């Protein structure tokens, strides 16, 4: 009796010692994987796992960029409609240049330029115009969607290029290409955040902008770059998504991506107020959302209820982080 009690307090102390904001997302992923594999025999199948990872890669890649925006004290609501906008242009380019290898390269190059330019537009108004990021990106959120609809003439963007769909459908070493992109980007951005001047400055600005300014940091430049990074990542997602579907629906493509991306960032332990955050955490945050979705599907929960569960996961994650600090 007594031993079990000491064991309990020991575990309790051990749990108290763990920095939840750091390891919380990892623990959550492990718990979810174990629980899911008991709940459904299909869960651990390779095909299911790669599917889940592929599904999260689109918003996951965007969330990696969003991590920097949020760490530096900003927010970007425009990423979802930006995805549709750039995706539409990608398909126009692929078709225009004949659907071959060259066409695909041109399409990717144009997408990256468009994404970066769209991000730069957000960043410019926020830093030079000194308008709150929420307002600016709420505005561009509406603009990108409307431009997409205008260009499409309210029809779908479609391509018949078989080669193009290889990017989104293809595998390398049995792992889908979008997942590779997500993993490589996570490693790259992790280093960018933790080991470079840019990452350090972004954290400093999000923690205390005045101190950053007095410390000779070019605050506007760093913030501007965070929006360009996000725009670039949106472009990559647009390419992967449009090639997977071989089409972009101007009304629904990318819809709600901004919320999934922000949710992944927050669940991953980045403070919404900025200053601290983790790129790996964002990846784990995206995985958590992916597993929850997958389990709800496997268990046959009504798709109408999935939004509720996802909402609860987000609120719960933030509550746990609050409790610790």
């Amino acid at each position, binding site marked *: 009796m007594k031993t079990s009690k000491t064991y309990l307090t020991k575990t309790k102390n051990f749990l108290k010692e763990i920095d939840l904001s750091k390891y919380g997302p990892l623990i959550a992923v492990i718990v979810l994987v174990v629980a899911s594999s008991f709940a459904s025999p299909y869960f651990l199948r390779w095909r299911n796992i790669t599917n889940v990872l592929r599904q999260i890669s689109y918003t996951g890649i965007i969330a990696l960029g969003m991590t920097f925006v949020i760490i530096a004290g900003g927010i970007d609501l425009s990423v979802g409609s930006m995805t549709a906008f750039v995706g539409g242009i990608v398909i126009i380019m692929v078709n225009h240049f004949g659907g071959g290898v060259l066409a695909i390269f041109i399409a990717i190059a144009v997408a990256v330029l468009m994404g970066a330019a769209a991000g730069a537009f957000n960043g410019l108004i926020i830093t030079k115009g000194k308008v709150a990021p929420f307002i600016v990106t709420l505005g561009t959120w509406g603009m990108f969607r409307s431009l997409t609809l205008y260009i499409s003439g309210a029809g779908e963007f479609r391509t018949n290029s078989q080669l193009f769909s290889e990017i989104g459908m293809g595998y390398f070493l049995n792992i889908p290409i979008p997942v590779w992109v997500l993993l490589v980007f996570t490693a790259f951005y992790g280093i960018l955040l933790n*080991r*470079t001047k840019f990452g350090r400055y972004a954290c400093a600005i999000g*923690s205390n902008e*005045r101190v950053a300014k*007095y*410390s*000779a940091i070019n605050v506007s430049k760093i913030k501007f770059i965070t929006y360009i990074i996000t725009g670039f990542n949106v472009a990559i997602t647009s390419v992967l998504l449009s090639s997977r579907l071989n089409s972009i629906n101007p009304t629904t493509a990318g819809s709600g991506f901004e919320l999934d991306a922000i949710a992944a960032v927050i669940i991953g332990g980045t403070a919404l107020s900025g200053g*601290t955050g983790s790129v790996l955490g964002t990846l784990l945050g995206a995985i958590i959302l992916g597993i929850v979705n997958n389990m709800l599907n496997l268990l046959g929960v009504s798709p109408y209820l999935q939004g509720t569960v996802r909402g609860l996961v987000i609120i719960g994650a933030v509550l746990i982080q609050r409790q610790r600090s």
Partner: protein
Amino acid sequence: MAEPVVETENIAKEFSGVRVLNDINIEINRGEIFGLIGENGAGKSTLIKIINGIYQPTEGRFFFEGEEVEKMDPFRAKEIGISTIPQEFNLVDHLNVYENIFLGQEYQKNALLLDRKRMKQMTQELMEELEADISPEDRIGEISVAQKQMVEIAKAIAYESKLLIMDEPTTVLTSNEIEVLFSLMRDLSDQGVTIVYISHKLREVKKICNRVMVLRDGEFISLQSTDEVTEHDMANMMVGRELNQMFPETTPPEEEPVLEVKGLSSRDGRVENTSFQLKKGEILGFAGLVGAGRTELAETILGIREKKEGEILIKGEKLEVSSPRQAVDNGVAYLPEDRQSTGIIANFEVPKNITLISLQKYIRNFLISRKREKDKTQDYIDEFNIQVPSVDSKLETLSGGNQQKVSLVKSLDTEPEIFIFDEPTRGIDISAKMDIFNFINELVQSGISVIFISSELEEIIGMANRVAVMREGSISGILEGDEITEERIMYHATGLETRAV
């Protein structure tokens, strides 16, 4: 005659087993101005937090107006007539002055509506009594630090307190404002209000207080009438040893100017047509009233504040574009006035704070070398005796004095040739002040030139080779040698005497 208002009996306080206050017995009489002094960590704040109910004493009894108060908390304290003017402001930036003064104690016209007219009227009267040029409708976020202090004082006296605790109320006030405050304190004391006055400024303590109590390391050291002790005695008792000379010997600078400022004005008009020279190895003091434009001048030189016209020359070379980065690259470092909001990042670790300006030095192949950052930090910790739980501690876990050291080291790590100190001794105790003075002296010995901005005339006079006095955005006089006296500085600062420079 002497009727005790506050009495304590063997009060002691422990925090997780560490005794920070031991066996304190005091009697404070009605209408008395009671000075409380001691170094940082001596237990002053703990003692007043017991008196105003924020802390519960671990041992001992507390009496107010002869009756024992057993369950003390901040609400009870307010109820029985204890108000505190805290060291850190407790004001809401987005509200007006009168809304702040009556926050939580609003007058109602009826059950629904506030009686704004009455609150504004009362605020107006309070401000007139304080001779403060503040309108009840001013927003807190838009008034100066000194004005905020006045609002805090008005807030405390608005509640007709019996006991008023003032924790360092004069650190941001000018001599004139301090005089007004002191005459108000004397009036209150005549009306029977008891005041506990905490300050690092011993001259003020001697001037305004009837008795002064010294605490050191949580122990009672002495309680004497201020007529019986000198400032020097008080300082010695606080530190616990004989203090030698407060200021190090000044050394004459070289003739060669390292910084020349010619006709500098800022775009917002806070700095107007300012010219001066700083010589190599010189300490140039900047005196003036709060709001005279000293910090603004520093910020314009640094490129933080936008320049309208004028030239800045560093070692004869003109700075073309001004940005903070350019100032740093040209060897200018700045220790800002307000440590918390401009100096350090509280949730960053020590090394990340120290390398924030000079980060480029720690980069190899685009990556920050954490090892080099840590090694350098360890060197600084040893050299400047910075007290840290560990090298990687976050700044918020350090005491104020140690945060100030980190802020200093951060600027020093840029290897400056010109170092601008903006109120470096505000709110720190005597030993820490002497450390700073000696540090500045070592800097000039090694050929670095220093601009020393301070509102403490004594410091300016003790430290500077020359003193530039600012008034309304411009330099109203530069004093040298025998001219450097408190009177002459005040003449220039208030505009009673101006001389072309």
